[in-house]
């Protein structure tokens, strides 16, 4: 894989690790066969989660396109996550592999314009693994909390226009 184009150090978001900040938001595109079901299961067990993350139901993570991820970031989200089936267990064979590729593509794109690539993440889990979903959401919340609110102008203009 080609190395991401170098961005100037000045324009670059610095690392994570700062305390959680309220008011941040993350859009989670969840496959209805696995992650959305895992989310339902964890919620039914009354597992508390940070309110940062809002779910969007998808039929398959293969349906998620870079347009969705970049638009969400451009229109107010501080982070986006894609949660799909375990590798090799996609109900449509390889939709989750498509998603993995697209997330990697968006990460490279973000990096190239000086946005922390970890604002876009891919997670895989089965419907029977609610703890994995919980961990994913907490991880995302921790990462986004550690970053400053996203500078909208930093997100590629094409995405904002497209939305």
């Amino acid at each position, binding site marked *: 894989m080609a190395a991401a184009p170098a961005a100037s150090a000045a324009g670059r978001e610095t690392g994570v690790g700062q305390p959680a900040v*309220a008011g941040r*938001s993350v*859009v989670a*595109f969840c496959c*209805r066969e696995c992650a*959305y*079901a895992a*989310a*339902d299961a*964890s*919620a*039914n067990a*009354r*597992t*508390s*989660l940070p*309110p940062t993350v*809002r*779910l*969007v*139901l*998808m*039929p*398959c993570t*293969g*349906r*998620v*396109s870079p*347009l*969705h991820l970049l*638009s*969400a970031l*451009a*229109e*107010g*989200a501080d982070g986006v996550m894609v949660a799909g089936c375990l590798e090799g267990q996609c*109900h*449509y*064979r*390889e*939709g989750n592999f*498509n998603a993995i590729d*697209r997330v990697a593509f968006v990460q490279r794109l973000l990096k190239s314009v000086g946005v922390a690539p970890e604002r876009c993440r891919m997670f895989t889990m089965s419907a029977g693994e609610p703890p994995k979903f919980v961990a994913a959401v907490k991880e995302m919340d921790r990462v986004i909390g550690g970053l400053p609110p996203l500078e909208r102008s930093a997100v590629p203009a094409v995405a904002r226009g497209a*939305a």
Partner: protein
Amino acid sequence: MRAGVFLCQCGGNISGVLDLDDLAAHVRPMDGVTTVAINQFMCGTEGHQMISEAVEDRGLDHLIVASCSPRFQGPTFERIARELRLGENAVAFANLREGCSFIHKDQPELAQEKAKKILAGAIARAQHQSDLPRQRTFLHRSAVVVGGGIAGMTAAEELAASGIEVHMVERQPSIGGYMARLSKTFPTEDCAMCSLAPRLTSTALEGRVHVHTLTEVDEISGPPGEFSVKLRHRPRYVSEACVGCGECVPVCPVKLPNDFDFGVSERKAIDRQFANAVPSTFAIEKKGWSPCKSACAVHTSAQGYVALVAAGRFEEAYRVASEPNPFGSVCGRICTHLCETACARGKVDDPIAIASLKRFVADTVGPTVPVQPAPIVHEERVAIVGAGPAGITCARDLADLGYRVTVFEAQQVAGGMLRTGIPDYRLPHDVIQREVDQVLAKGIELKLGRRAGTDFTVDGLLEDGYQAVYLATGLQKSAEAPLPGDDLGGVTRAVELLRELNLGGTPIVGSKVVVIGGGDVALDAARSAIRLQKQAGKEPDVTLVYRRSKVEMPANVTEVEEGREEGLTVEFLVQPLAIEGKGSKVASIKLQRCALGEPDESGRRQPVAVAGSEFELVADTIVFAVGQALVDDFAQGCDGLELEAGQICVDRDTMMTTREGVFAGGDAAAMGFYTAIEAVAAGRRGAASIHNFLRGQRLLPVWDDEREVARPTEEELAAIAIGQRVPMQMVDGLQRRGDWREVSDGYTAEQAVAEAERCLNCAVCSECDSCVRACPSGAIDWDQAETIEGITVGAVIIATGHQEFDARRKRSLGYGRYDNVMTQSQLARLLAAAGPTAGELERPSDKGVPKNVLMLQCVGSRDCQSSGNEHCSAVCCLFATLHSSLIKQHYPDTEVTIGYTDLRAPGKAHEEYYKLVQSRGVRYVRGRVSEIIEEPDKSLRVRLEDTLTGRKSEELFDLVVLSAGLEASEGTKDIAHVAGLQTASAGFIKEYHPKLAPVDTQRTGMFVAGTAQGPKNIPDSIAQAKAAAARAIGMLSTGFVLTPAQVAASDPDVCIACGVCETVCPQGAVAVTTGADAHSVVDPNICRGCGICNAECPTGAIQLGGFSDEEVLAEATV
């Protein structure tokens, strides 16, 4: 949009955390929101009523349901929307319970803010939600089951029991599948056929199951519930009149490896796979016409008489050879035998000596066959002018049809050009006379010395009571080829020279003869000249000059070779310029060398003179043999007969001349120039035409329909051991040139049989008609032909099964090379009570009982490196264990060793069975074999490594049995292609979901069962067949099917036809059309709504209903 927002308290689950009134106030002013309502349980009766009233009172078109996860009550609200006629896709969900109240109890303020966002997302999304079309298909309560093995039969019976009409399609002549070929079954050791046979009968007798054997599925199209299936029925060539007596089998001369027995036995071209076959009707395997039959002008079944010669049945061979052609002995000598040119064996070594075999049977059997006068059936009389091959054949066929026939011949002897044009050494006169006499013995009158136009006229014949006349006068004189000096003494013409010779004269030739021409007549004249010179006490000196090369020469190449053996000089690429005389006599001939130029319209390369290459040859006799011409004296007194370019005009379809009732054929007719066999063919066409004319209807075909030609594949040819033709005894060239003896003696019976055995039986059935004669019920039906039948069915069950891995692909194990290496399936046939050895275990090399047997597991399974198959074939461990047990019980002295990778016996009672067999003394060794070497005594040296102890050993075995793995059958691969189904490794059909939908395929309405889906044993196949049947029954019970709402659809105006969607679609639901307005089209019956195409589409032309970019973005970007 006129949307209603319905907020559910969920009995406090939601309202306990979120302030619903605040949310209601928040959304009420939003764009598109018409009404907002709150209820304790929106999914309950009260909530339902509240929604209904709101829709009715306020004219809502969208519902925003803010409640639990759409995965719980989503379908309930979608059903309500459908009931209220809001269409598909009218509901947007705000997941306030699992998505908010349940998980943010401890942060109610933040939860309230998040809930507002969730609601806003749902409302924004609803703005873009439009109705989605669904297609409705009414179901046909019928199914097609592809494959008639145990899985197919089980599924068919289950379907039929539910009142569903079933078409069972089986490619083999009988249903029964792989199970019918097994000996016994594990772990109970009960006989496979004993449990299968009752099922075969019950399936066949089940009124709702229509069994189509010898049938394949060519096409499946249309939506589920209404599949259009195209069935291709191959002909069986045996009608239902067959009583199954089997009289046809011993008389069939064609033997081939028995594929039902995996090649451990032979079968005949007419066969029934096994005793209990269903249907019990025999079947003939026929691949069309053999190349030899197709090439022959009269379509003689050469493969047929060759097969009968190989079987030593010479009388029957003669019957087959003489049926279309009365000149067997003649054609066996002088025919151009295009059959041999076409012979497939010629691609391997030498073509079969078909002509010599014909000569053998006609010479040996022909003279012994008594001929009775044919009964007169019709009153009409037919006159035939010319007793050559065309005339005599026409006379024979007409006599057989029951006509009175008179043949008029100008010469004092019958036979035409065969008699007057071909010298004795090549075709003895008595041979022609015998065959002519046999035809005349049918009651045909022959009038010799009667020349048409001179001694009688055609008009006169028609006035004398002949209703039809057949003109077959031939081309009786040499064609003219003007050359300076051709009027000198010593210049003669071949046709005239040979006629004088053959009618008993002794033509005078000089001491230096030059023959000009390259046809058979030129060679005959040249070789006769050698003999005439020798007879006159001169040293033979004959030169043949031909203007093209050997390749273009129309004469038979062996003629040139035989001529050279006799001292003939042949000059190729030489043409004559002038004949030089001395006084009135020939002194020399001026010649010129040529080179080959461009091909002319006949395809032969034209000779081009080479300037300055002129030379002279001293000669006293010049013989022209440059073609023949018509002697048209018969046209005198034949009113209305027209000639064209020196031949008689005939209608190609009726063989009639321009004079009503007068027909013509052979060399004289304007249909081209004929060889002897083509003249015979012309005679047959003439007889058929005259019969049709006299009867006033088209009763007989004038020209045979050409059939498909069966040719062995390159692979089949490559497997044939190279040999050579059995040579025929020849008289020495220098010896034979002194007299008129025949050049070759012909085959002996032993030589003929040996030569005939080389035949490859290209077409399988040789059409020798032996079975037709043997069948007591007249069941053989050559009129059967391939037919296509279209049926419409609601569901498809695929049960096309598996086949054994081709163990030849593991070369080191010697299968196919060593006699005593076989596969487990072959062993099953040997151990089967109804098998070829009646259950006796025989070592292939010597038919003895093997004393030491090795079974080798995982051949072509769990072996990615050399076979490409990673999968475990699931049945082989127990298959080998079963066979070992059977051997041990029948032959206690035989040692059996099983070399395994891992012993896998997970089925019910399988482990117990394995332990039992082990206790019977079968040795299990964990290890793999590196190589097998055949010893001179055909036993097998095996290098074996015990992977448990690490001990390496080398042992000798009498027999090695390979447990070859299971792969998808050819039928499975074919149906996957036809039905558009995906396949997994080794070609097995991929199920829709490996756990949740194991009998569904990715196409709705198509189900899979048995080993077509993957390796499995019999009970598992049956269980799966019943599951597949249950799925089909369930679907067919609903009356109709709707396509799903959430499917992709393409906008042709936006689509750029890049084809990405087609590439990424995991279901194969998308296709790109061709033409100027090419665009992608989604089949809603196949699409499963994943939306991968939508994400990949570069223009956004293809959108997934319910998850379009607009809908997703609206929700994600609030």
